């Protein structure tokens, strides 16, 4: 093990939070292990476009993006960086790994664990979302940055999230065809939230510039969209029908990117001992931490996996968590610097609360979702099946009971795509608030792993 000459610190995730944490630890003379499920550092938002594509997109020219990647480059030889490595379980102060899909026999033991596992899209399913040609907003961006492809020639960006506008702008920049934005939140709510968003002035400025750029390009943006359904032909996306205010509308398209903000990846945190609590701002269950990211003995959380905040907040949170870790190891830390980092991080977090108001989770829509709409993509379980079972379990607050009886959320993605929606549908069917229910429990392996035959025959 590479960290034999000091305390073993393992960081999971090489986005801004993981890179920020690693930088602090290296400056303190330590050599952390940095585990990255991706092939290259940067995480999702700061994902480096594949250099062989020769693609030049604006996000990769932004100062903060360049700085984070420069920080990593300076660190690379001073840490034990492990790309294409999945942590599939955490148990007894050891992380269990799969390298390029193959399970590693022995666990990687650690003294301290910093989880910077990030987030994926938060999805509110709509009729037709299982048609081919429907992708998450993040997926539409990854397919562009990693593969140099668009998800279609006439793409509808649907949901409510700053990423709706960012992804649309990136598609236009890369020369994709026609782009339309359908936002479920009325424009008035954005104006009302702007003061809060301005707690981090750069967030508001970037947003306003993005919107102005899209308008200048003549992109159609419809706000206050409701009742959207994706129409298909031969299993493929053919168009969308929706209401704009009270006006019914239909658009032809061959692809839809869908997302309502971010959902924290909390599975490893919970396996490592963190407790989750419902967060009414971000409409999801998030791990409890103290102000510096401590979640349990020897466990620190940072970035979007702990609290939705975006890249700048994530890096700062990663630095704060690493300083907390150093302090707990009895190392001296610069307390004034810690306070400065916290203050900057908190401004981004306050701004993010404004964004959560400006781009709202469509809670009211779940009760109206047709019974036949599929909620669970893996197991093909409908909203109607979840409603029926939820009603029959009146008084049972555990969504895992609904899961056991319907198989909703029991598939290979472990409820990452449908879990929050399933809770909303179940709660609405019983006229309860989502937070009256408990959330899906994680199960190792947190993602499917390949177990080679010799290992199976030994069992």
């Amino acid at each position, binding site marked *: 093990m590479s960290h034999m000459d000091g305390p073993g610190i393992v960081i999971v995730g090489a986005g801004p939070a993981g890179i920020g944490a690693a930088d602090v630890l290296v400056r303190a003379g330590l050599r952390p292990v940095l585990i990255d499920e991706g092939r290259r550092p940067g995480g999702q938002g700061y994902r480096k476009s594949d250099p*062989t594509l020769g693609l030049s997109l604006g996000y990769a020219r932004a100062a903060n993006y360049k700085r984070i990647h420069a920080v990593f480059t300076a660190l690379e030889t001073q840490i034990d960086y492990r790309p294409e490595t999945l942590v599939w379980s955490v148990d007894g102060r050891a992380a269990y790994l799969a390298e390029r899909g193959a399970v590693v026999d022995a666990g990687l033991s650690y003294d301290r664990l910093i989880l910077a596992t990030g987030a994926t899209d938060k999805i509110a399913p709509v009729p037709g979302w299982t048609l081919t040609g429907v992708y998450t907003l993040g*997926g539409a961006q990854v397919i562009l940055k990693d593969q140099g492809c668009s998800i279609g020639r006439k793409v509808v960006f649907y949901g409510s999230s700053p990423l709706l506008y960012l992804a649309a702008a990136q598609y236009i920049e890369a020369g994709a065809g026609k782009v339309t934005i359908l936002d479920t939140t009325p424009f008035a709510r954005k104006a009302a939230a702007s003061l809060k968003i301005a707690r981090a002035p750069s967030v508001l400025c970037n947003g306003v510039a993005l919107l102005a750029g899209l308008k200048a390009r003549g992109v159609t943006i419809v706000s206050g969209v409701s009742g959207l359904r994706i129409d298909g032909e031969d299993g493929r996306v053919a168009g969308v029908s929706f209401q704009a205010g009270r006006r019914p509308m239909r658009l032809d398209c061959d692809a839809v990117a869908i997302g309502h903000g971010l959902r924290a990846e909390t599975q490893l945190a919970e396996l490592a001992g963190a407790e989750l609590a419902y967060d009414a701002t971000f409409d999801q269950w998030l791990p409890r931490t103290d102000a510096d990211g401590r979640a349990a003995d020897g466990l620190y959380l940072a970035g979007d996996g702990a609290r939705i905040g975006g890249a700048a907040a994530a890096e700062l949170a990663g630095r704060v968590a690493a300083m907390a870790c150093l302090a707990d190891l009895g190392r001296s830390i610069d307390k004034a610097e810690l306070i400065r980092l916290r203050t900057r991080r908190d401004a981004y977090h306050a701004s993010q609360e404004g964004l959560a108001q400006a781009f709202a989770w469509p809670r009211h829509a779940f009760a109206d979702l047709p019974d036949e709409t599929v909620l669970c993509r893996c197991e093909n379980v409908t909203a109607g099946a979840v409603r029926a079972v939820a009603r029959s379990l009146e008084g049972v607050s555990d969504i895992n009971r609904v899961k056991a009886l319907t198989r909703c959320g029991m598939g290979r993605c472990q409820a990452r795509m449908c879990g929050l929606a399933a809770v909303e549908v179940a709660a609405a069917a019983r006229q309860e608030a989502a937070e009256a229910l408990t959330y899906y429990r994680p199960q190792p392996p947190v993602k499917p792993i390949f177990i080679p035959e010799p290992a199976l025959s030994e069992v």
Partner: protein
Amino acid sequence: MEHGTDKMGTSPGQLHRLCRRRTPDVTFSFDGVAMHAQEGDSLLCAITTLASHLRVHEFDGRPRAGFCGMGVCQDCWVWIEGGHRVRACTTQVREGLRVTTRGPLLPGMGAETSA
């Protein structure tokens, strides 16, 4: 026909390349049909730039072509020769790779991959 006759249909691909990789061509097969891609392409890109879907769903028999693109939703499973099931979005295409929509382990789903 280079690709797409019966199984994948003659319909065009779902993804569209906006730029060309400066990497060598690779040839692979998808359900026995030869296809061309660029080194560095994910299977998701290599296949769905040419075909409309990656697999059919186990329960409803409808086509699927991936969803999250980042290894989370597990919607884009395909099989590669030898019996491995992989995510098309996080697996890179290789010269000579034989990819199938269906694996050897599911009863009633056909057995197109040699074990």
